[in-house]
């Protein structure tokens, strides 16, 4: 029987309360959101916090809203709500593509957007989704809030820009006209983590791609956004050759490891092929050829 090591438990009653607790308790404290990454790690004693601050009562962090320029998502929004959201499906179909294949429906009832991004597991899907969409993360502390890009948020495997006395509260995604996005994942069986995933987002200027982004999951560190992809997409006309070029860039810029999910060579092939597919579909959606 796996049981976490002893800790003290406290329920936060507001974002301010949660942050104040975090500031007082320091690095020995952790927030618990869905708990579906943290508790398994604590059971294996891979994480041993002395204090857990439960943020599930913070109703002010559960929302998906929209204004003229961006969509804002509260950090406690659960996978299930990201999957069901018509607002997200309409503006950013990449979310529904990804959420359909993240874990299973029961895990999706608990796991949250904030927990996924803060866990920063290299195989986790939503970092690639948010990076492809050029999202920004709102991080709060007692001294105020700062907004960081996904590139700055995602520092490395299991490492983010969120400090000991800080909390991720919101994700902001810019709304761009004539945009499209898509996610492609290959897994061993339903509900499993990715062997490889690729997400793409583009926005069009007439017949050419104004700009776009590609993010990968499960192929090593620092692949949530492949910087050189944007340069190749900017100003280019959509074509099969372009998708191949970008697929090749993605494959060249990742560092997959051979493990029980597949060989490094197979994963590199998937990074190329899934990037071709996600980009092709993102363009089809941006140009109204596909829903």
């Amino acid at each position, binding site marked *: *029987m796996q049981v976490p090591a002893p800790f003290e*438990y406290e329920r936060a009653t507001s974002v301010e309360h949660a942050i104040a607790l975090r500031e007082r308790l320091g690095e020995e404290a952790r927030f*618990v959101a869905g708990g*579906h990454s943290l508790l398994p790690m604590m059971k294996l004693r891979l994480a041993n916090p002395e204090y*857990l601050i439960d943020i599930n009562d913070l109703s002010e962090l559960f929302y998906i809203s929209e204004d003229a320029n961006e969509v804002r998502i509260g950090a406690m929004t659960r996978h299930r709500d990201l999957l069901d959201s018509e607002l997200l499906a309409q503006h950013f179909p990449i979310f529904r593509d990804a959420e359909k294949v993240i874990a299973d*429906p*029961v895990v999706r009832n608990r796991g949250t957007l904030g927990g996924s991004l803060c866990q920063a597991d290299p195989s986790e899907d939503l970092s690639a989704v948010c990076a492809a969409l050029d999202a920004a993360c709102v991080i709060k502390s007692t001294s105020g809030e700062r907004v960081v890009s996904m590139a700055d948020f995602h520092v490395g495997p299991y490492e983010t820009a969120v400090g000991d006395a800080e909390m991720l509260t919101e994700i902001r995604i810019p709304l761009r006209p004539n945009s499209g996005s898509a996610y492609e994942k290959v897994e061993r069986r339903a509900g499993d983590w990715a062997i490889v995933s690729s997400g793409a987002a583009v926005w069009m200027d007439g017949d050419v791609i104004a700009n776009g982004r590609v993010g990968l999951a499960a192929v090593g560190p620092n692949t949530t956004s492949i910087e050189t992809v944007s340069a190749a997409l900017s100003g280019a006309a959509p074509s099969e050759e372009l998708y191949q070029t970008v697929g090749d860039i993605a494959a060249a810029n990742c560092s997959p490891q051979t493990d029980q999910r597949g060989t490094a060579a197979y994963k590199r092939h998937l990074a190329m092929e899934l990037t071709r597919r996600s980009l092709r579909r993102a363009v089809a959606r941006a140009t109204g050829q596909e829903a």
Partner: protein
Amino acid sequence: MQVNMTVNGQEVSEEIEPRHLLVHFIRDQLGLTGTHWGCDTSNCGTCVVLIDGEPVKSCSTLAAMAGGHQITTVEGLEVDGELDPVQEGFMNCHGLQCGFCTPGMMLTARALLNKNPDPSEAVIREAISGQICRCTGYSTIVRSIHWAANKETKVSLGSAS
């Protein structure tokens, strides 16, 4: 610490250690051993209980986190000696062999039918896709859930006319 919650409609107030997982709290402290405990890694779904009506894996949830919420375990499906249609479906369509996965399967089925009274086979299969049955090959489980859906839609049609 003290934790208060409603389990199958009854208020419970218990002294727990914060690190106590919900599955062990339900089985060992409340003695409700209908909830099973298998993989311990949130993969198999035999430990599923409903929290405020939503299926959740109780091996990855702290009992403390369930405080203030409504918990339903498999023991709560039967009301006043009358089986839930989902339980009847599992009996009639041989939805179980060893019965290990059954409590989790039935609770997920109950939550599904509460939301979607007439689910297609694909929707049923998706709903139970986070749960593993070592015995049945799933076909009879899917049939059992269909049976329950049919019974419930017939009953509600009957009462409407």
